[in-house]
């Protein structure tokens, strides 16, 4: 039985992923939002604020990792919406009365978010190259970048699966995606943290986004990484495991009343 249980879990996860893929292209607005927003932010920072921000390097090179993080984070947070929609719409109710492994259902949502993110991130990086982004990374560093982004994407996705299961309406799910959009601003993503007031500086230095961005910057531009990559792995690896467990628990026990 053990073997066939996993066999079905994978097939169920696949069936749900196919569904999420269809959703991506049928929900044109959220795809457009996921692609358009980071590009708009990048252009605004590079051309509008960029001239005034001193980072010691070419600003476009400084800001692109931050924009990618914003893009991925926001893209992952949209998962909360699709999860809440399923819950409010009664679909989860039906799934819970079926002989299914709950996690395979959420795998579908995470996979859908993943694909949407890959599309959005690729577009963002291409636009970055067009406006003068010149990283020094070799193929090994690029592999590292992909690994870092994948870990970040997965952990944020599962965190937002949890949020999606916790809120009671689609509007509320929409609202909780906003902090994710703004969290990168309170890190070294767009400006060096030394320029912030001391209390904010302390927060920015210690929130998970900063080691993530410093790792990314290190890989792309060759700036010193220090122990940031370990911090980053601890933060997001931990978040991933905890939120997967919490999500499975919530799915089993939450009553959508």
């Amino acid at each position, binding site marked *: 039985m053990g073997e066939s249980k996993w066999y*079905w879990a994978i*097939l*169920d996860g696949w*069936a*749900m992923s*196919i*569904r999420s893929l*269809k*959703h991506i292209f*049928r*929900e044109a607005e959220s795809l457009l939002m996921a692609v358009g927003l980071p590009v708009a932010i990048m252009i605004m920072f590079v051309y509008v604020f960029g001239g005034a921000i001193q980072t010691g390097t070419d600003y476009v090179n400084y800001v692109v990792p931050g924009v990618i993080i914003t893009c991925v984070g926001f893209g992952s947070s949209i998962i909360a919406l699709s999860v809440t929609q399923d819950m409010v*719409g*009664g*679909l989860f*109710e*039906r*799934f*819970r*009365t*079926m*002989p*299914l492994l709950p996690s395979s259902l959420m795998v579908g949502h995470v996979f859908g978010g993943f694909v949407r993110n890959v599309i959005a991130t690729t577009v963002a990086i291409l636009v970055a190259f067009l406006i003068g982004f010149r990283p020094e990374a070799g193929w090994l560093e690029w592999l590292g970048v992909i690994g870092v982004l994948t870990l970040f994407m997965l952990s944020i996705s599962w965190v937002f699966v949890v949020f999606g299961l916790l809120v009671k309406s689609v509007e509320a799910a929409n609202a909780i995606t906003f902090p994710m959009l703004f969290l990168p601003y309170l890190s070294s993503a767009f400006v060096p943290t030394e320029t912030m007031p001391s209390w904010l500086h302390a927060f920015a230095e210690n929130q998970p986004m900063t080691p993530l961005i410093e790792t990314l910057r290190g890989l792309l531009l060759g700036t010193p990484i220090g122990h940031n990559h370990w911090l980053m792995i601890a933060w997001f690896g931990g978040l991933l495991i905890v939120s997967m467990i919490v999500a499975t628990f919530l799915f089993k026990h939450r*009553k959508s009343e």
Partner: protein
Amino acid sequence: MTEPVISVKNIKKNFGKKTVLDGLQFEVAKGSIFALLGENGAGKTTMVRILSTLIQADSGVATIGGYDTNRESASVKKLISLTGQYAAVDELLTGEENLLMMGRLNHLDRQTVKKRTAELLEQFDLKEAAKKRAQSYSGGMRRRLDIAISLIANPQVIFLDEPTTGLDPRSRKNMWNMIQRLAESGVTIFLTTQYLEEADQLADKIAVISRGKIVEEGTATELKRLVGEEKIEFTFADLPSCQKALDLLGGQIDVNEMSITITTESSPENIRQLLNMLYESSIHPASFIFRKPTLDDVFMEITSDHKKGAVVNG
């Protein structure tokens, strides 16, 4: 009675301090239509949620096909399907895609999924809309798709939680026909409803639930017999007359309609006597009608407060 497929013994459920189910007990025969009839908040949905393994009862035992809904929920899940109050369809997928996906999630093989999908689209009159997204469906179509989805894996027991709430009269009639056809195919149907007419039309057996208790159980005919064969209803111009008539003749009072309903024989002699009694007490009814009992009468009678305790258990 043939072997029961659903058996519920002394089920209790509290939400916080509120008692929602207070010792429910009933059995549902295999292949029959069973209706749980009650007002909003009577506990119908809670019972369905317990039977469909979504929540656990605080005490008592419920079994489906011999499996405990709590301890053997995995086996129960293979026998049942639930159609909740809100159509659980994927709006962005087409009707056909919804069925295909659910077939796959029910672990049917590819050929069977295709075959069942085609059958169900045909059976539920959704063939033309098969390639359209569910978000463009009307309420009735959505409900049909919802039920079609719940049938894809050939469940033995189907739970329909208020299947016609929010449907227009025509769609409701269609739904009734569909439920009857389903029952003919041999599945057991457990439905909840707040419409007495619906229970009357469909159910082989009806249990009336009020405040978490089954207050009456039987066939529609049995329930109607409980409140007598025929009824006479007097309507008055004002409430005091209505109250006086109630004191004099007994029966059920409807304060809003300013009427009383009495169970009586339909002989002319009987009516003459009643009218004379009213006349002698100077109570003048505005109108009266004579009618066969409906399930509404049953419902009013057994759920009304002052009649409580006088319920005969058949």
